[in-house]
């Protein structure tokens, strides 16, 4: 923000003369108030900049402009680019005549501005008649909100927009007449027309083709959708804010729910918008407007790592397990006989008749029925839980439960580690390679997101992988070549699968990108889409997984390869210790013509965790030529 002596003179002594301060609702904006605001440069304050969405115009510019696309967000004609004019127009608007509908008055519509400016300038003490904003008071349930929680919803592979999770806020009201499910929750997302197909959805989501808005609803809407339908865990991080901060945040959320944004999937998404709200508090900065991406996990990690005067999280975490997580936790808490009865009831689900069950004591019966209810909810395919069907096994279990006395079943408490303790999201590594055909090679890898089958952590699916724009370059004889560029790679494995019907141990892999077809030729890069499906079983001690997948790929052609090929892979991932993991894989690849002979590719990779955000990896790979690789990696 440019500020020189001339501008100071103008703002303090000249501008007030030209602004309308005529009669309004019996009081007027006094020149003293205006000069106070201007002399204190409140238009430069982080709270003011946050409320109006002002961001630096560019790296080399000191000017700011608001990112709000709609003119309705501003009072003055120059509001989008001039915080001074907008502040002056805002202050004047507070003195406007009050019409029939109080909630239309600027003190109510621009609630955050009013709350903050009233606090800073003591407007009410200096003659301003304040307006009762009934809609705002009802929305925030008057003074019942005692804290705000930041929510992290786990990732969901069923929807590309949800791969990396989601953030929301929850307003916690401590009253005996309202449960947590009734607490107001604040969401930010893209407003997507129902007719948009997947490719349009992806394109517009990435390029800013959608409007983004804040909205609010009772928490049970989200808890039900995420936890019951999408089977996503929710982590809640309760913040420690004082009353003034709480009031300001409520006003900010209210005001921003009436503002339009432009939604960008990678960097101006739910996580970014939620994190930006906290710029209004204590000089906190959780975001960088020039970041190429910003994830829900990053938001939570930065928020929980604030310290000193900026610390607003004191460690109060609540875990809301999804139906799937609840099912697995309960199932694996059953003893062997209880598990045996569950298996029998599931595999013979025509009628609920099982003598072993009838012979069990009541507490075991309640446990078994609870597990079965969760199992049928988790494995029902319609996404809404219940199914209309005669002899529906879920209803049979429910009917059995109604026959038994009321009471809550007992299970051992189970809570996984919180995702805020996980390592950072992005990864870079530099490698030294010894190639039997090429000699020494240097490789440089950058993976913006997210994890692979060796470095999965808290909040990730164990032994699985999810990555985007993972690029691995090789430098050899002064030339750079693409060793691997994975636009997207998903490796789905469910280590906790019980093996019950519909909860099988299926594994699948999908990858699209560019890869070096053979290790003896740096110019053998081909564009490739490949997919595989198969079966994976956990190791007896649950520290690893063994699997087999088969599938194929479509690719551009290179010598010794066809456009298509069939593949079969056997693999194993194992955690030797908490810090050492290994992955072993052999893939058989063959095309339909004589040009593409059966080829076997072997890979052994070992990862050692040096620290939370650093690792060492060693790998052996044979694909025509052989490579031994040692790499040092860092997460950021």
């Amino acid at each position, binding site marked *: 923000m440019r500020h020189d002596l001339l501008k100071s003179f103008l703002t303090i002594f000249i501008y007030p003369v030209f602004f309308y301060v005529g009669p309004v609702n019996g009081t007027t904006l006094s020149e003293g108030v205006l000069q106070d605001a201007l002399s204190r440069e409140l238009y430069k304050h982080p709270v003011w900049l946050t409320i109006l969405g002002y961001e630096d115009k560019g790296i080399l510019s000191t000017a700011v402009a608001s990112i709000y696309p709609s003119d309705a967000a501003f009072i003055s004609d120059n509001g989008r680019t001039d915080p001074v004019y907008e502040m002056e127009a805002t202050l004047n608007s507070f003195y406007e005549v009050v019409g029939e509908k109080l909630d239309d008055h600027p003190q109510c519509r621009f609630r955050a501005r009013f709350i903050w400016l009233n606090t800073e300038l003591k407007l009410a003490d200096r003659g301003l008649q304040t307006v009762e904003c009934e809609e705002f008071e009802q929305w925030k349930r008057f003074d019942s909100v005692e804290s705000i929680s930041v929510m992290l919803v786990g990732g969901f592979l069923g929807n590309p927009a949800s791969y990396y999770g989601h953030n929301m806020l929850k307003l916690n009201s401590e009253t005996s007449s309202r449960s*947590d499910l009734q607490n107001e929750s604040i*969401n930010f997302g893209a407003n997507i027309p129902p007719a948009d197909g997947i490719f349009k959805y992806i394109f517009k989501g990435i390029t800013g083709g959608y409007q983004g808005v804040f909205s609010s609803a009772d928490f049970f809407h989200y808890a039900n*959708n995420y936890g019951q*339908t999408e089977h996503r865990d929710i982590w809640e991080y309760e913040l420690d804010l004082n009353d003034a901060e709480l009031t300001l945040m409520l006003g900010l959320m209210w005001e921003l729910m009436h503002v339009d944004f432009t939604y960008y999937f990678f960097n101006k998404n739910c996580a970014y918008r939620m994190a930006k709200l906290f710029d209004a508090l204590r000089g906190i900065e959780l975001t960088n407007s020039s970041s190429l991406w910003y994830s829900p996990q990053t938001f939570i990690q930065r928020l929980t790592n604030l310290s000193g005067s900026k610390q607003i999280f004191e460690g109060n975490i609540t875990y809301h397990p999804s139906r799937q997580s609840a099912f697995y936790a309960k199932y694996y808490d059953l003893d062997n006989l209880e598990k045996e009865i569950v298996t029998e009831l599931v595999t013979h689900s025509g009628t609920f008749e099982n003598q072993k069950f009838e012979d069990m004591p009541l507490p075991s019966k309640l446990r078994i029925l609870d597990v079965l209810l969760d199992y049928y909810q988790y494995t029902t395919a319609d996404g809404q839980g219940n199914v*209309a069907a005669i002899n529906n096994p879920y209803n049979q279990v429910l009917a059995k*439960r109604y026959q038994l006395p*009321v009471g809550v*079943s007992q299970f051992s408490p189970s809570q996984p580690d919180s995702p805020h303790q996980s390592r950072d999201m992005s990864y870079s590594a530099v490698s030294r390679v010894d190639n039997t055909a090429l000699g020494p090679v240097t490789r440089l890898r950058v993976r913006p997101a997210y994890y692979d089958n060796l470095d999965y952590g808290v909040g990730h699916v164990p032994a699985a992988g999810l990555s985007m724009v993972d690029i691995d370059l090789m430098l050899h004889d002064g030339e750079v070549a693409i060793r691997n560029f994975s636009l997207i790679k998903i490796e789905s494995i469910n280590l906790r699968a019980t093996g019950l019907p519909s909860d099988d141990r299926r594994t699948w892999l999908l990858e699209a990108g560019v890869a070096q077809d053979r290790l003896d030729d740096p110019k053998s890069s081909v564009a490739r889409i490949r997919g595989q499906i198969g079966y994976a079983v956990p190791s007896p001690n649950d520290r690893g997984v063994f699997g087999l997948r088969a599938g194929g790929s479509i690719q551009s052609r290179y010598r010794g390869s066809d456009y298509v090929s069939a593949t079969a892979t056997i693999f194993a991932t194992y955690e030797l210790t908490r810090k050492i993991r290994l992955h072993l894989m052999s893939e058989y690849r063959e095309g339909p013509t004589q040009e593409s002979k059966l080829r076997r590719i072997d890979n052994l990779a070992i990862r050692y965790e040096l620290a939370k955000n650093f690792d060492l990896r060693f790998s052996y790979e044979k694909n025509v030529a052989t490579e031994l690789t040692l790499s040092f990696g860092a997460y950021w």
Partner: protein
Amino acid sequence: MIHKKSLVGSGMILAAALVFGSVAQAQEPTGSGPNPFRDCGIGAALFPTTNWAAVSSNVIWDVGTTAVTSATASPQTCQGQYVAAAAFIFETFDSLTEEAAKGSGEHIATLLNILNLNENERAAVLTSVRRDMASLVPQNSFDAMSKTEKAETFYLSVMGAIES
């Protein structure tokens, strides 16, 4: 087969709304008379044919407005604690019926909060609803019901218990 008590209860609600309609509009909470499932679009509107992306975390999910805009009754009629209760029952039906079977739970407590029932009323309503559902759930006719029909049945059971 809907329990007789529920039919009587729902009939009493509707009869009261019809007889005292003009007075009710001035003094009673709106939405207590009509069946929210039939007249306010609960069920049909809340989960329309869902675009694959529609329930993603990045989509606006404005349940209340969606329900009201597809109502056959007026928006003013489709407000109030009973419609809110019906919407809650529809959305969280599975959790509600499971907790009713167990005799307690956060969703049951939330539903009773929405209906502003005191402690004595809560215990009586829960006992009555549990009794109704215990006889309904095992029946093939219940199996064959859609989610909307099941939720409506539960709602009528709750309303019948309140009225009795």
